[in-house]
């Protein structure tokens, strides 16, 4: 079964003919070639595929593509501002060394975005809860948490465009 779905993707109205068994992750990577969103476990454990749907972080590997009809989807590519300027959260991860191999990073950053949108000044505990659906197998989280704290500061001084 196939259907044309319409949704907002990183600020643009888009449509795509999608097969009914595809997940949002497949559509993003295979049809829109937005390969920043990664497939890790494919089972909702690791969070590498995290994107925002209507502002909420979800695992795109478990999100049936048909369900995004009429919704707004933001991927890691959508965070980059005018003139390829990194989003403050991205900048904080780069500067804070919250990245090692980088595979978990897009998902980690999307969960951070959802967290900071709801809680602009999270406690360390809230940060840990906020990224509890994102696994990193390299750095061990210390620098990731520091990067998120840095992102909070950066967003104060250079708010999102």
């Amino acid at each position, binding site marked *: 079964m196939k259907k044309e779905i319409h949704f907002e993707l990183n600020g643009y109205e888009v449509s795509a003919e999608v097969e*009914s068994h595809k997940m949002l992750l497949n559509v993003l990577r295979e049809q829109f070639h937005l390969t920043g969103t990664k497939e890790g476990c494919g*089972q909702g454990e690791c969070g590498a595929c995290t994107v925002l749907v209507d502002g909420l972080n979800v*695992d795109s590997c*478990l999100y049936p593509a048909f369900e995004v009809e009429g919704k707004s989807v933001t991927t890691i590519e959508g965070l980059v501002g005018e003139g390829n300027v990194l989003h403050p959260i991205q900048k904080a991860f780069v500067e804070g060394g919250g990245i090692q191999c980088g595979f978990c990073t897009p998902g980690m950053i999307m969960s951070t975005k959802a967290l900071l949108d709801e809680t602009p000044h999270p406690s360390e505990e809230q940060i840990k809860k906020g990224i509890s*659906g994102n696994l990193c197998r390299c750095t061990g989280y210390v620098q990731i948490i520091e990067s998120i704290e840095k992102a909070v500061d950066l967003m104060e001084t250079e708010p999102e465009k």
Partner: protein
Amino acid sequence: MKKFDYYQPENLSEAFDLMEKFGETAKYIAGGTDLIVRIKQKAIQPDVLISLRAIGSLKGFKVNGGISLGSMALFRDIERSEEMRNACPALVEAVSVLANPQVRNVATPGGNISNAAPSADCAPPLLVTEAVLTVAGPGGERDIPIETFFEGPGKTCMDATEILTRITIPETVGKTGTAFLKVGRVSQDIAIANAAVLMMMEGKTCRKCRIAAGAVAPVPLRLHRVEALLEGKKVDQELVEEAGRVAGSEVQPITDVRSTEEYRRHIAGVLVKKAIQEAMGRAG
């Protein structure tokens, strides 16, 4: 991934019509965080999924004394509701440690309960509050006390055409407190064991209590022997210790990848003990 068709009915009768048309090759899908995983693991191979996400009547919840919880309410909204926390702390505690934020942003109590995992975190709080599950099908609607709903791992008394539509938690009376506790490898994991307690107190005496534990039997389990031990008695430290021991012997756990029978018995006793104390503290 196996191909399947995907339908998004906007009301229950459309959903029933689709189920009637496709029969046993079809399955209802809620948030999908369990079902899609099982399809990917080839544990189930449906040809058709009928999504319940567009059915407005299944969404949201209302607190007025008791709680009327739509089966498709989102865990994220329950977790953030002060009203829900006041009305039923045990349920909110269970929901806040269920999987991770991404899952809670799409997953629902209806899905959690209908999947009937013995470890379902929603089940013990709903068992101790004696929730009533409203189930609708092509033939009409029926109310099922949650204690008779679960029949085995993944098995409920619903037939395949029926949909869990509403969960009703009756208003608690008197000085009543509830609590939920869970042990997993980390809290977002599937429970090694979980437990919920409801205590209705009169001074130091337990007027009524309800105790339930999960991941320690083929179904989420009411612990009637522990309840009988406590009810009508003055609750002191010694009695709470005894309740923990009885809980450890009343559960029927197995050894699997997540834990051993022995540890589950031990930890179920500990969780019940702690949850009794916590629920009593809230019953003031």
